[in-house]
């Protein structure tokens, strides 16, 4: 049993880690009252940014590069949505297209058709001394890469920041009511710029994690829908930090289960396994019941209900 369980949970955490970065970034963006459905384009930009920067300055540099690339894409989104007041959904759609195209173009330009070798600088899992020898939890939670450990610190930090700092409070307020935030003297534009850029940087980190902590190479379109999944994770997590993290774990688990079931040689059409994570989410959403409470400003986005 344990022989199956540990690798499964291990894969769950590993798969969930990049998803959690993107979802937490999207969470912060949405809590400011803006939905960025261009997360897919941001993630793939982070993938390439991570690859290029890591090639130039090592893995640590790579994560920085990924975050910057993601934030750069998000800046385009913010400029259109906040400055030009363009429709957030169309802008997000275009951003995804832009990200996929731009990364492909740059990748081919930089590496030619032969591509980057598999030898991209990347980070290996580190067994945390002491903790990693705990039964079950040790091999699952404490033999991961630094990016997972960073997440262990980041999730409580974000939760604390949102709940216990004035800036976090301000961010939530902007997402609930632009008017009330204005009345309280908050700088709505700046907060939203900040939230979108932060979301972009997190999406970029998701991409960099994929490349530098997981796959160790870049392929065109390797984001493979993670941007959309991140948006779903935020909804499943009910726009809460811990909820979103758990939802990322659920998705990670569903994917890991999918891999496991196929590898175990179950004689069912493999499409059933591919659909599993999404089916599971639907069932969970129905089981949890009740409309999730979205930040009120999200619902008032012009584009969503304009008549």
């Amino acid at each position: 049993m344990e022989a199956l369980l540990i690798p499964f949970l291990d894969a769950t955490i590993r798969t969930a880690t990049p998803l959690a970065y993107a979802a937490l970034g999207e969470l912060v963006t949405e809590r400011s009252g803006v939905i960025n459905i261009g997360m897919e384009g941001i993630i793939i930009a982070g993938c390439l940014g991570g690859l290029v920067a890591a090639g130039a300055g090592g893995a640590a540099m790579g994560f920085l590069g990924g975050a910057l690339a993601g934030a750069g894409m998000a800046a385009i989104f913010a400029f259109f949505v906040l400055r030009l007041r363009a429709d957030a959904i169309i802008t997000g759609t275009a951003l995804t297209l832009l990200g996929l195209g731009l990364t492909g173009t740059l990748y081919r330009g930089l590496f030619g058709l032969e591509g980057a070798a598999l030898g991209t600088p990347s980070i290996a899992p580190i067994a945390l001394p002491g903790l990693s020898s705990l039964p079950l939890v040790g091999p699952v939670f404490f033999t991961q890469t630094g990016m997972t450990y960073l997440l262990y610190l980041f999730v409580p930090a974000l939760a604390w920041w949102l709940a216990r700092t004035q800036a976090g409070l301000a961010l939530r307020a902007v997402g609930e009511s632009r008017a009330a935030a204005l009345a309280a003297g908050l700088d709505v534009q700046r907060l939203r710029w900040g939230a979108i850029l932060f979301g972009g940087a997190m999406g970029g980190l998701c991409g960099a994690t994929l490349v530098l902590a997981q796959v160790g190479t870049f392929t065109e379109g390797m984001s493979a829908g993670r941007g959309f999944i991140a948006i779903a994770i935020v909804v499943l997590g009910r726009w809460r930090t811990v909820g979103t993290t758990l939802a990322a774990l659920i998705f990670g688990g569903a994917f890991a289960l999918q891999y496991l079931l196929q590898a175990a040689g179950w004689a069912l059409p493999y499409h059933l396994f591919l659909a599993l994570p999404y089916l599971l989410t639907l069932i969970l959403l129905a089981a949890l019941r009740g409309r999730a409470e979205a930040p009120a400003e999200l619902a008032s986005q012009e584009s969503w209900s304009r008549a």
Partner: protein
Amino acid sequence: SGGERSGGRESAFQVALLTPGPISDQAWNATAYHGLERIRDSLGASISHIQTKTPAEFEENFRQYGTKGYDLVIGHGFEFQDAARRVGPQFPKTLFVTTGGEGTGPNVVALSFAFDEPSYLAGMAAAAITKTGVIGGIGGTELPPVKLGFEAFLAGARLVRPDIRLLVAYLGNWDDAGAGKEQALAQLNQKADVIYQNADAAGLGVFQAVRQAKGVWVIGSNADQNRLAPEVTLGSVLIDVPHAFLLLARQAQLRAVRGPTIHFGTASDVVRWVPNPLAPAPPAKVLAQMDSVRAVFAAGGRPVVTPR
């Protein structure tokens, strides 16, 4: 950047290629694009390439190339066969070729690669080196050549080691290298110690998984992938698409292509098992066995495959 038209005047030999995926995948699509480049470089042809997604686009672009008077239009994959069959009769001067599928007329021709033959040999090599008796196969989506490759792989392995077990998994796409790696890790965890990947760009993730594990091997496909990770690659099931394309184009220039299907088997040297010289060679007994099987294939014999 890649695919500008080149190679001379309008009257030049015009060749077009349609790929179903990005040409940076270092596998199926990349090797076709290299083939196109080789046609340009060797024959001075004027070339055009387009990446297409849907059947509607296949047909539209076949027509466009036909209208423009292209001499040779290659759809790289069996999925182009319906479009070729429909468009071909309207443009008798253009030769429509699909790699895979079936040809249907004088100017609608299919190239058939005996992908199963080197896959069979790869299975024998895998069976010789596996310690656990479990081997894996990871595909992008379940397409006929992919599936056939895995079936032959298993059959070849069984010849050497009758009790061998093959795990097969599909990723559902050809780009998600992350999924490729995780699926490989899952198979490794199920004791597989040789994995045959046929997932194009996503397959790079399989290479990574194998590189990080100890004492396990990966087998590449379509292109010669031995140099991707020489320390863990057992060999590659190669389709020498550039070679095949050049042969095809030469014949096409002479208007000597004979359809409806052109078969490239072991005899043509277009498909072959390319062992990685850095990997340990199978025991002499197996090597001898492989040689005799290859001889059978070269003489026109086919691998015996029982569908799983």
